[in-house]
């Protein structure tokens, strides 16, 4: 296979992967953020303490998380078809990807939000703030660096899942690696795929860490200059 044959294939695959990962990340964040916050608020001593609800949400999240993605994907086929009209292709892959990532992200959000100093919550209560104010003005902004790290972790995990989805006809880089690299022994193409994945994941991880750290250090005394940190992380 020549480069001119490979190039369009790889280009399409990259776009498919980004498309699947992008949408499923968005849905995971939109769904997982409130779920994670709710897990904290409904817990014992929480602002909306409701142990029954907490148990139920916690169980659902745990079960969804412990299910291997490939099984979740197969199990959700009927559901996927009812939403997208098909079980094949990148749109169809978004459904199990997003559903798998919501509980994953929710647990990370829960951990991040729990880290917020309770004194800040009390301070806002003493000003007359209600629970919604506390969520918007304290819990989310104060845990933002951790939330960004959690999002990075979720994106990286979703890239992995999307490759699995590729094996059942979702397209993307995983699909290329399987179809050409494994089934047709196009080793070169497979290695290029691996290299692309490695680069993409590194870039996302690096950008996420950088964003989280610069937010976290906000206002702290002169830390090492961003340039220096960039070099250090790259080396």
């Amino acid at each position, binding site marked *: 296979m020549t480069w001119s044959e490979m190039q369009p294939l790889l280009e399409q695959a990259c776009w498919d992967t980004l498309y699947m990962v992008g949408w499923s990340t968005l849905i995971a964040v939109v769904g997982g953020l409130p779920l994670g916050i709710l897990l904290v608020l409904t817990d014992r*001593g*929480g*602002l*909306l*303490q409701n142990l029954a609800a907490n148990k139920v949400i916690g169980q659902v999240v745990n079960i969804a998380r412990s299910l291997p993605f490939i099984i979740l994907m197969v199990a959700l086929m009927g559901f996927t078809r009812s939403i997208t009209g098909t079980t094949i292709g990148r749109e169809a892959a978004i459904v199990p990807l997003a559903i798998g990532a919501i509980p994953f992200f929710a647990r990370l959000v829960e951990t991040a939000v729990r880290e917020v*100093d309770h*004194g*800040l919550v*009390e*301070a*806002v*209560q*003493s*000003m*007359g*703030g*209600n*629970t919604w*104010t506390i969520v918007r*003005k*304290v819990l989310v*902004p*104060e845990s*933002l660096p951790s939330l960004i790290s959690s999002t990075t972790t979720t994106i990286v995990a979703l890239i992995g899942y999307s490759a699995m989805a590729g094996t059942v006809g979702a397209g993307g880089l995983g699909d290329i690696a399987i179809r050409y690299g494994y089934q047709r022994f196009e080793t070169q193409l497979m290695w290029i795929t691996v290299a692309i994945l490695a680069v993409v994941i590194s870039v996302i991880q690096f950008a996420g860490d950088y964003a989280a750290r610069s*937010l976290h250090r*906000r*206002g*702290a*005394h002169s830390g090492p200059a961003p340039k220096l940190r960039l070099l250090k992380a790259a080396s």
Partner: protein
Amino acid sequence: MQLCPGTPTPAHSTVTETHVITTTDLTKVYRSRGREVTALDGVDLHVREGEVYGVIGQSGAGKSSLIRCVNLLERPTSGTVTVAGEDLTALAGRGPRAGRELRQARSRIGMVFQHFNLLSSRTVQDNVELPLEILGKSGKERSRKALELLDLVGLADKAGAYPAQLSGGQKQRVGIARALAGDPKVLLSDEATSALDPETTRSILALLRDLNRQLGLTVLLITHEMDVVKSVCDSAALMDNGRIVESGTVSELLATPGSELAAALFPLGGEASGEDRTVVDVTFQGESATQPVISQLARTYNIDISILGAAIDTVGGLQVGRMRIELPGRYEDNVVPIGFLREHGLQIDVVGAAEQTAALVKESAE
């Protein structure tokens, strides 16, 4: 509008007889995993308008529980809390959720915390604006008010800084500015200076004092340091094991025979030099401090008086003198000279006397 912290404030006080904070028979019992802890055990607190009221006590005495019950961050198990004429305990709000009326009442009570509790994600100015956002003020009004308050606490130049860039004392100033944003009549302070060094503590206390004087702000502060009470409080209460064991204005306390708070506010050393000696603590306030009573005593009864220790200090803005003297003979032999001192308006505490004798002193005082 800038207040210079540390400068002497006018001695006049704006204290009125109206009670702004009243708690009646307040109890708080924490239940966790079957164990019960009684943190407050029938606390009656009366804080007058315009005064700085200090509550002091050992760790675990229930001080924090008390102050947190005042704005109902902690719901009392029983009893009532009235702030500025409003019975807060009657305002709805089940469990940890506070109803609308209670939240509105809270917004009129400022609170400062030991660990400042500033949002690290916001600048100093945005931290001060937070209570105003909650009150639904417009952006323009918020920034005007925030800058004015930062100026008041001497941090006008730090508006754009983040809390992580400030020293502890500066953070507490931001905390105070934030607490004042809702124009409260009452400021609650839970160990606001406990995380600060002595110098910074003094400047923060001076700021609280100035705010109290200039804005007529009533301050209820919790502390475990006697120096805090000594330097800023008009009144004080001593808490032990969930109860208030002594309370009153500083001069009332100093005039109370056997008052633990008074003794702690104004410690004196010196032991009796022999068996048949009577050691007496004499407290002078105001007028009596200017009269040569001790030399009159020596002359009138022809006795030798040794002075074991003496000090003059300012407590709560009052000049107070205290002296520990030794008279020859047992207590029974000195009833007449001690009576003489009392007649001259001095407060007398017989030191180290048995319980019985103390009771005797009280009786004879009445």
